[in-house]
Every structure is written in structure tokens, then in C-alpha cells.
């Protein structure tokens, strides 16, 4: 779908773990069944297409306010259910606090879909299917849910949490194996998810979570296995104009919102 600035409405907004919310949003205008212009053999015609609302790893800039807070919040797509966008977010500041109080039917403005998203080609067309590891830490699980759903291959999903575990039952439907760690040992392995993960058997690794976790994973693979990391940054415009969200990479400063948020792990200077 072409990126745009659209209005949406809250379909549901539920606290699924302490301070973690799942929010489903429907567009009120310009959503599925959008009109697309196509030029073929010099003839231009319009056709209706049920447009995808985004790809795994892409995000939207969301806001449900006028001028306070001033900026929108970048939130990655956790899933797409027919005409509904699913977002998973942790209440961290003023913006997410406001999101957490939204009720069914409340309005929202969405700019997106934005960013490059995960490279699925590398995984999808291989015969025999690739062995793929998805590794998430904390709320970094959000984009990985949609990724797990769309990926084809033998997928092992490693997810680390601080205390509470969430979204496991949904992920189980999309993957072959799931490995869980919690820092307090409340569920699964006690400690970090990187302690569970053995890189050697994988052809491809996707990761999203705290920077130290992603750094550790890139180090563990010793450049032998391609790793894709989904990076986070403070954003203002979300579309690549303000240069506020850049990170350092081996080929210079890159915009998380435009060249990212997904980067080859070996490119990122952590």
C-alpha cells in the first residue's frame, strides 16, 4: 500500500500484560479496496485491489491528539487481521500513556506504512526451506509476530521477557519451536534469551529488541550467518526528511525510518 496520512478508529485496546497493550485499528478512509492507477500499453485504467496495510518490519506513526504531545509515535505493525492493523506497545511515556486510555471507537491518525521492512525473499524461496531463527527481547516481539506469520521456512522463535510472558499462544501457530526466557525465571529459562540461542544450525536470523541483545547476537554469528536487526530510534517526521532518527552504520549515518528500521546486523555500529 502506498504510504499515506489516514484516519483510523480503535477496534480494541487491551492490556495483555502489565503495561503491555494490544491495539487493533481500522481505517475509516482510504483503506482496503483502494483504487490503484495502472498504465499498460499506454492505456491508463483504474482497478480495485485489496491493498495490504503493510509488510512485516514496517511501522506507522500514530497519534490520537492535536498538539500535545507534539510528535506522533512510531509503532511497528505486530499483525494484520483482514482490514485491521494490530499494534503491540509498552507504556513508556506520555504518548503511549494516552494510547493506553483509548476506547473502542476513539479516533486515531496514522501515517504509513513506513520503513523498509524485513527482507523476506532471502528466506522464502529456498529449497529445501531455510532454518530460520527469530529472536526478540521485550516489546521487540511486536514486529516479529507479523514476521513469523509471513515467513516460510523452519522457524524457531526465541523470545526473552523481563517478568511476564505474552503473545506466546498466537506465535505458536506460526512457528515450529518456541524458546522462552524471563529475567526472573517466572517462565522458561531464567536469564537472557541469548543464553538459549545456538546460532550454528540457522541459515538466517531476524532480531528485534534491546541494543545489547542485538549486538550480542551479531557477535555470536561471527559474520557467518546473515542477521537482520530491527532498530529503534526517536523520530520526528517518520518519512526521512528531518534526519533525526539516524544511526551509525559502516556506510555512514542511516535513517531508521527510511533505510531502516531493518538493517543487516553486520552494517550496524552498535
Amino acid at each position, binding site marked *: 500500500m*502506498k*504510504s*499515506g*496520512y489516514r484516519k483510523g478508529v480503535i477496534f480494541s485496546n487491551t492490556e495483555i500484560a502489565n503495561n503491555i497493550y494490544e491495539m487493533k485499528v481500522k481505517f475509516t478512509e482510504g483503506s482496503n479496496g483502494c483504487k490503484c492507477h495502472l498504465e499498460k500499453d499506454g492505456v491508463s485504467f483504474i482497478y480495485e485491489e485489496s491493498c495490504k496495510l503493510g509488510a512485516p518490519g514496517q511501522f506507522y506513526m500514530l*497519534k490520537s491528539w492535536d*498538539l*500535545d*504531545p*507534539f*510528535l*506522533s509515535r512510531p509503532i511497528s505493525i505486530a499483525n494484520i487481521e483482514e482490514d485491521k492493523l494490530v499494534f503491540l506497545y509498552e507504556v513508556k511515556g506520555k504518548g503511549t500513556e494516552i494510547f493506553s486510555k483509548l476506547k473502542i471507537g476513539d479516533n486515531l*491518525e496514522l*501515517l504509513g506504512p513506513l520503513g523498509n521492512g524485513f527482507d523476506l525473499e532471502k528466506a522464502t524461496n529456498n529449497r529445501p526451506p531455510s532454518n530460520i531463527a527469530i529472536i526478540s527481547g521485550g516489546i521487540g516481539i511486536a514486529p516479529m509476530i507479523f514476521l513469523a506469520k509471513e515467513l516460510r521456512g523452519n522457524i524457531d522463535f526465541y523470545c526473552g521477557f523481563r517478568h511476564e510472558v505474552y503473545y506466546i499462544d498466537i506465535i505458536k501457530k506460526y512457528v515450529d519451536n518456541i524458546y522462552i526466557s524471563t529475567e526472573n525465571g517466572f517462565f522458561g529459562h531464567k536469564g537472557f534469551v541469548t543464553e538459549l540461542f545456538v546460532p550454528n544450525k540457522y541459515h538466517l536470523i531476524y532480531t528485534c529488541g534491546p541494543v545489547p541483545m542485538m549486538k550480542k547476537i551479531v557477535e555470536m554469528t561471527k559474520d557467518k550467518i546473515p542477521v537482520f536487526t530491527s532498530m529503534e530510534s*526517536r*523520530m*520526528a*517526521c*517518520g*518519512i*526521512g*526528511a*528531518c*534526519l*533525526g*532518527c*539516524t544511526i*551509525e552504520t559502516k556506510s*555512514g*549515518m542511516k535513517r531508521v525510518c*527510511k533505510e531502516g528500521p531493518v538493517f543487516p546486523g553486520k552494517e550496524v555500529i552498535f
Partner: protein
Amino acid sequence: MIDTKVDICGIEFKNPVIAASGTFGFGREYEEYFDISKLGGICTKGLTLHKKEGNKGIRIYEVASGLLNSIGLQNPGIDGFIRDELIFMEELDTVILANIGGGTIEEYIEAIIKLNNTNIDIIELNISCPNVKEGGMAFGIKSKIAYEVVKEVRAVCKKPLIVKLSPNAENIVEMAECCVKAGADGLSLVNTFNGMAIDIFSRKPVFENVTAGLSGPCIKPIALRMVYEVARTVDVPIIGIGGIVDYKDAIEFIMAGAYGVQIGSGNFIKPDISLDIICGIETFMEEENIKSLEEIRGIIGRDIMC
């Protein structure tokens, strides 16, 4: 029939709404969201003679009614701009203002000479960037230093020259007078205010440069006052900048004496906010029976002086 056209330094703008430097890239990113040729003008991202990577660490930090930024003039350099961006911009049906920054007078001059032979309409001289170590804002604080820079640039610049002023100037009116005396054809004001934020848990400043530039609606009343004071003092056209997010803000700046207005941080809250502002201005003119913006430009200053 209303007419939103304005003439700034001999260049005709189809309307007074201009995208501010540093918030609009070179226009490409916004072209995906609306027809950017509907804008009165576009200021390029601040350009320096040589390519700059910009600052490390956090570059953006939201505050009440605005944001702090410390980008550090990341840009492709003049040659990179001419090679990769200029052709796209030249094809737009809008006025292009090249915003030029520099660390030394020599850098400014060399950059301007390179732009003299392009189809850029106007040079906007940035003597007010707070986020680079030397130059930039240093030139924009003391009127005497600003005078020297503008005079030397004026001597080589073949385009209309607008000087972008810093609100951190020791005396904004004196600064404006000095720039005009040195040959500026117009002034744009204000750039960001020097501000800061502290991370109380790490007990460190949020920004690696410690201070950063404050923009957004929180600066509007001060910016408006500065435009008002400067407009009453100098005879050249002024472009008002500072926290404009709707047509009412824009009209306020015009009534304070601005010929045009620039939209900066506002672009971040809605990509096509400038179109809303242009439409709002048109509707306001129709409803208030204003045929040309000249009728209300500087009307506040006029009242008080009578």
C-alpha cells in the same frame, strides 16, 4: 477575487507558505504525500561546502509543545546537492531557496559561487545554526561579525540574498539592521532557540553537544514578537518563522509584518500541513474580504505607530 501572491526580493511566490530548511529535506520525501509545487517555496536542508555526517547520539527530543534537535547540518555538500538533488528541485513549480551554512567565511563564499550558476531562485544564508561547533550560530550572535559575513557574501552572491537570523542574537533588531546594511535583500527569522534537556537517571545532558535547538509552538509568541520588532525597523521583506502550525499562526506573522512564512516543525505533525495552511489563508481572505495580503501585512505596526 483574492490573490495570495507575494513578491519577496523581486521573486514572485504563488502564496506566502514556504517549507523551512531542515524539516523538508530536498522535497522528495514529501512529494509522496502531496503536490509540493503547491507550496509558495521550499528551503533546502542546510547546505555546507563539504558533505557533513552530522551529530552522533540522540538528535531529537520532544518537549512541551515542541522539540529540541541537534542534527548538526548533516548534508551532501554543495557538489552532492547540485549533482543529486538540484534537477529534481528545478522541475518543481515553486520557488527554491538554497539554505547555506558554513564554518568559515571562505566556506560560505565558495559555496555561494558554486550556486551562482544554478537555477536556484534565492540564497538563504544561515548564520544561526546552533548545532555546529564553530561558525553557524557564532556568526549570528554578534551583529558586527554578522555584518562582515553578510558583506563578503553579498559581494560574490548573484542571487537575491536572504539572511536567516538567530533568536539567540544579542540584540535582534540591531542584528537585522546590520545585515540589511551589509546588503541583505531580505531577512528570515527566527531559527531555533538554544535550549537543553537532562536525563536525570543517567545524570547527563540528553544531547552530546549539551545544548540543542528548540522549535515548535512553544517558541511562537517570542518569534512573533521578534518579527514584529524587526519589521518595524528595516525596509526589506521579512519571512516569519517559529512554531507555525495553522493558518491563524501564519496570519499573525503577516499582520506583524512578514511577507512570507516558513513552516518547520509543523511538517512533522502532518506531512501536508502546509496545504491546510494555504487553504486556511485563502478562506480567511475570502471571509474577511481581503484581496491581497498587502492589506494586512504589518497592520499591527501601523496601528501602533499611528
